[in-house]
């Protein structure tokens, strides 16, 4: 008999062994093996296991077991894939989902609201970030285009200069013949143009997009040419290339070839090319290009190596086989050859790739859009991500909670024959519905607000869905992600439900696990909201400081007027006397840059101390060329000495406090009468003025010299505060009487100064909006959670009421938990917010302090908001008559 034979096989080991077959291998088998064979195989394997254990020990038996399972892993034995004939179910699922959503209208609204906001936010930020990253990438060979920049070491500071001296380009081409295309961009030109109209009369305009370029410009930077030849344009003098936008503005049509524009009195330039206006993500937003010429530079003595303007820049294309370092290493010798020894030794020239232009914080560019640091982009991206996560967390939280309480429904469905896959599909459909609705809403809203938002984000954003595959991809990924995270987990959990347990109402989802995750979510939301609130408050504080801090000069009631380009001194004198005739005009001052300006002129200086044995102090300072009315019009305080007198040469200088500190003096009186040389000219110091802010409050105050030469680019008029609006027409009258062909333009000084802080104001606004969004989304989430909890615990509340609890007791019960979470979120937020703000403020020379009261306000505000949100809902719940809530279901 067989059993005899079996006995022969058993028991070769001395001691009887015992052990268990590896469970995981068993699970694996159970997973893939079909039903019919499963039991048989399990039995065989088990029997073999026992045999082997007796013969060759436990470990051998275990390994052999696993091996056996592996040999059974053949398609022959796999589970049959059930054909799923439930396409018909989809319609039902859809209907059921709709009904569900409508039934839980409140929850659905909360869901959709939160999610829509999250998607909206991330979409807009996606567009913005992509816009910034795209800058200048559309030119062919963009990776080989470079700009010349210089770092100049001055005794007291380092100067970052993006510009080159006028003679640079010629010398560069001569000494570096292997470099292909070298272009010069000259934006240091007047923006006044005159366009002849039909009658031949010249109409003046201000064209800020006017720039002088050499013909290589169009070889470096790609444009779409509508007319004209890119290879030959601007090779001759007095030529123009115009964009279609500008052409339409001036001529009414884009067909402007051959037309003429006057850039100087009596001289005309001819249009030889029309290009399509460049895309928004370009660092060169020029509209009108003229052949660059050195006329003005030579006439005003600026055609020299000592004079540099930051708006005259040199760009070139590096040939493929030459490296950046190869060029840079030859630059010092090049400089020494052309520049004066003492400046050349302090100057390091380097070449900067085109890709860095838009993000560079050191050299800046000045041709239009402000640069944005990569750090700011990161911050923006982070904010968007955080808000999106917030919204998603809410969605997931609430969705899971809602789904889990439908155990009974699922039990019934399963009893009626739904398989696991069906249940999963059911929930996925429902979640998809919500997500899709939110999505559609978000897309719709973003179309709506994209143009308004553009201002806030300082980017001309356009949303063109059809032609934007990246955007569609982004949305696709977003949609998938949200769907999976929010819908899949609860769907799968529910599908594994045992109908028996569900119907008996004993379904308790892993509540413990659910709770800690839920709490984590809540805490994170508080955390995020708090950080943003704190940042907003501090940013606001800083903005207020910018607006209200004393500048050292008077910015109220001062109007700045445009000075025409061609004038002579008599005109200015006549103009001033015309203006001062009006009673509301209290003073008129001419200067080169006004009081606070982003246009700064600098100079090296030599200061000759009294004691001729001491060395000459050299340094760098800012120069303002002013007239005798300057300090009066701006209300600048004179500390020692006397004001400048009228002069047409540099023969008097006033200096500020920072200057005298820099040269090592403390007493303003001590420098009066000493000699200072500025712009190569020596002159005596006649007065010392109190420091005033010459740039924005973001920079610290530097040494400044007010010199007596009047080059008038700026005319500042002080008026009495009461008649401001009336005085404008008077000023216009005065202007046109002296300059009949000129363009009358005015701006209020305080408005102009506000513009310095534009980007900070924008940041501040972004913080505000993000904070509001975070609070809103957090509150929505909180509200949803609380509603859910309140519903769930209606019975409990009823019982408590019956036992004597008051409404405030119940309130306390619920808020206690959330209060703790809020507190935790706050504590975590403190160091993060502190760090972020410290970093943001570090950019500014004049920063406000991060004080404790800001944190306190943030916490109290959040607490108040939380209390309001929670109380409202709990109040409702607590007021319910216990009779209703305790009714048996």
């Amino acid at each position, binding site marked *: *008999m067989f059993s005899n*034979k079996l006995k022969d*096989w058993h028991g070769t080991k001395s001691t009887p062994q015992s052990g268990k077959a590896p469970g995981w291998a068993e699970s694996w088998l159970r997973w893939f093996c079909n039903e019919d064979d499963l039991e048989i*195989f399990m*039995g065989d394997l088990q029997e073999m296991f026992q045999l082997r254990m007796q013969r060759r020990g436990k470990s051998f038996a275990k390994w052999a077991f696993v091996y*056996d399972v592996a040999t*059974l892993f053949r398609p022959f034995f796999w589970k049959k894939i059930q054909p799923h004939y439930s396409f018909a179910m989809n319609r039902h699922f859809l209907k059921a989902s709709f009904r569900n959503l409508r039934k839980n209208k409140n929850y659905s609204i909360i869901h959709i609201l939160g999610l829509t906001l999250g998607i909206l936010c991330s979409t807009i930020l996606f567009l913005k970030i992509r816009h910034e990253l795209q800058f200048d990438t559309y030119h062919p060979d963009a990776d080989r285009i470079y700009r010349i920049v210089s770092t100049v070491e001055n005794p007291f500071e380092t100067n970052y200069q993006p510009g080159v001296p006028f003679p640079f380009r010629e010398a560069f081409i001569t000494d570096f013949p292997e470099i292909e295309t070298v272009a010069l961009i000259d934006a240091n030109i007047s923006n006044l143009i005159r366009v002849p109209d039909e009658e031949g009369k010249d109409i003046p305009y201000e064209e800020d997009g006017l720039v002088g370029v050499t013909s290589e410009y169009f070889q470096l930077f790609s444009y779409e040419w509508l007319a004209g030849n890119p290879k030959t344009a601007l090779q001759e003098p007095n030529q123009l290339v115009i964009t279609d936008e500008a052409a339409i503005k001036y001529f009414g049509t884009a067909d402007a070839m051959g037309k003429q524009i006057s850039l100087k009195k009596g001289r005309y330039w001819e249009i030889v090319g029309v290009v399509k206006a460049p895309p928004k993500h370009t660092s060169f937003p020029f509209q009108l290009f003229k052949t660059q010429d050195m006329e003005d530079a030579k006439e005003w003595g600026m055609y020299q190596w000592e004079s540099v303007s930051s708006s005259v820049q040199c760009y070139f294309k590096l040939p493929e086989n030459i490296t950046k370092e190869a060029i840079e290493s030859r630059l010092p010798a090049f400089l020494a050859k052309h520049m004066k020894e003492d400046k050349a030794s302090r100057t390091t020239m380097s070449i900067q790739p085109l890709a860095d232009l838009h993000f560079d914080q050191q050299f800046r560019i000045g041709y239009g859009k402000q640069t944005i640091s990569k750090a700011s982009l990161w911050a923006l991206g982070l904010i968007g991500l955080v808000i999106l996560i917030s919204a998603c967390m809410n969605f997931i939280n609430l969705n899971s909670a809602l789904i889990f309480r439908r155990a009974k429904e699922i039990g019934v469905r399963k009893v009626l024959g739904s398989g696991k896959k069906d249940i999963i599909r059911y929930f996925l459909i429902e979640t998809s519905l919500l997500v899709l609705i939110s999505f559609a809403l978000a897309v719709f809203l973003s179309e709506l607000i994209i143009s308004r938002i553009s201002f806030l984000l300082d980017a001309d954003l356009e949303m063109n869905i059809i032609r934007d595959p990246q955007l569609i991809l982004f949305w696709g990924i977003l949609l998938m992600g949200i769907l999976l995270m929010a819908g899949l987990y609860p769907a799968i959990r529910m599908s594994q439900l045992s109908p028996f347990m569900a119907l008996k109402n004993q379904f308790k989802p892993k509540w413990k696990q659910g709770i800690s995750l839920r709490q984590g979510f809540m805490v994170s939301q508080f955390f995020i909201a708090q950080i943003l609130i704190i940042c907003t408050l501090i940013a606001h504080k800083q903005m207020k400081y910018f607006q209200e801090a004393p500048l050292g000069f008077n910015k109220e009631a001062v109007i700045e007027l445009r000075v025409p380009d061609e004038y002579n001194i008599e005109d200015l004198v006549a103009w001033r006397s015309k203006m001062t005739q009006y009673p509301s005009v209290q003073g008129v001052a001419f200067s080169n840059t006004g009081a606070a300006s982003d246009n700064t002129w600098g100079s090296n200086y030599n200061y000759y101390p009294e004691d001729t044995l001491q060395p000459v102090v050299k340094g760098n300072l800012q120069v303002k060329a002013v007239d005798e009315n300057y300090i009066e019009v701006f209300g600048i305080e004179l500390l020692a000495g006397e004001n400048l007198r009228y002069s047409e040469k540099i023969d008097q200088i006033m200096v500020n406090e920072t200057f005298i500190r820099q040269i090592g003096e403390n007493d303003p009186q001590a420098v009066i009468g000493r000699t200072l040389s500025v712009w190569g000219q020596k002159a005596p110091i006649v007065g010392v003025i109190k420091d005033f802010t010459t740039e924005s409050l973001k920079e610290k105050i530097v040494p400044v010299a007010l010199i007596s030469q009047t080059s008038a680019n700026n005319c500042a008029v002080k008026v009495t505060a009461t008649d401001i609006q009336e005085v404008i027409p008077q000023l216009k009258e005065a202007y046109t009487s002296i300059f009949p062909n000129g363009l009358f333009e005015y701006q209020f000084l305080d408005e102009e100064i506000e513009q310095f802080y534009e980007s900070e104001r924008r940041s501040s606004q972004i913080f505000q909006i993000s904070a509001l969004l975070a609070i809103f989304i957090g509150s929505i989430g909180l509200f949803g959670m609380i509603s859910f909890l309140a519903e769930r615990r209606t019975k409990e509340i009823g019982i408590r009421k019956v036992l004597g609890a008051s409404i405030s007791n119940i309130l306390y019960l619920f808020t206690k938990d959330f209060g703790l979470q809020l507190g935790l979120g706050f504590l975590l937020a403190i160091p993060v917010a502190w760090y972020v703000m410290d970093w943001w403020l570090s950019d500014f020379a004049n920063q406000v302090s991060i004080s404790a009261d800001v944190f306190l306000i943030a916490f109290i505000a959040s607490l108040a908001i939380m209390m309001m949100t929670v109380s409202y809902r709990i109040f409702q719940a607590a007021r319910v008559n216990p009779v209703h809530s305790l009714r048996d279901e």
Partner: protein
Amino acid sequence: MKYTGIGAFEELVLLMIGVLDEDAYGVAIKEEIASQTGKRPSIGALHSALKRLEGKGLISSHEGGATQERGGRRKRFYQLTNAGKEALMESYQLRNNLFKQIKGLAWD
């Protein structure tokens, strides 16, 4: 006849089932093969062959005989069908026939 041909291993399994008579189930077949031929086919290969043979109609099966060593699980016992017996006979006769025709091989 339902089959188009059986491989060497399948034939071996078929023979074993015949040999083991009433006791022909997975483990027993495996052990018997090992003790009589020295081959150690894996349980996967074995059950594969069994399934194929059953599919070809050469063997039939019934279940039963749960023991403790098997954790209370049943065994599937196989036995030859008429077709299976016929197949074995044919194979044997063919081999014998050809064998006899080879010069120099003892055949008594």
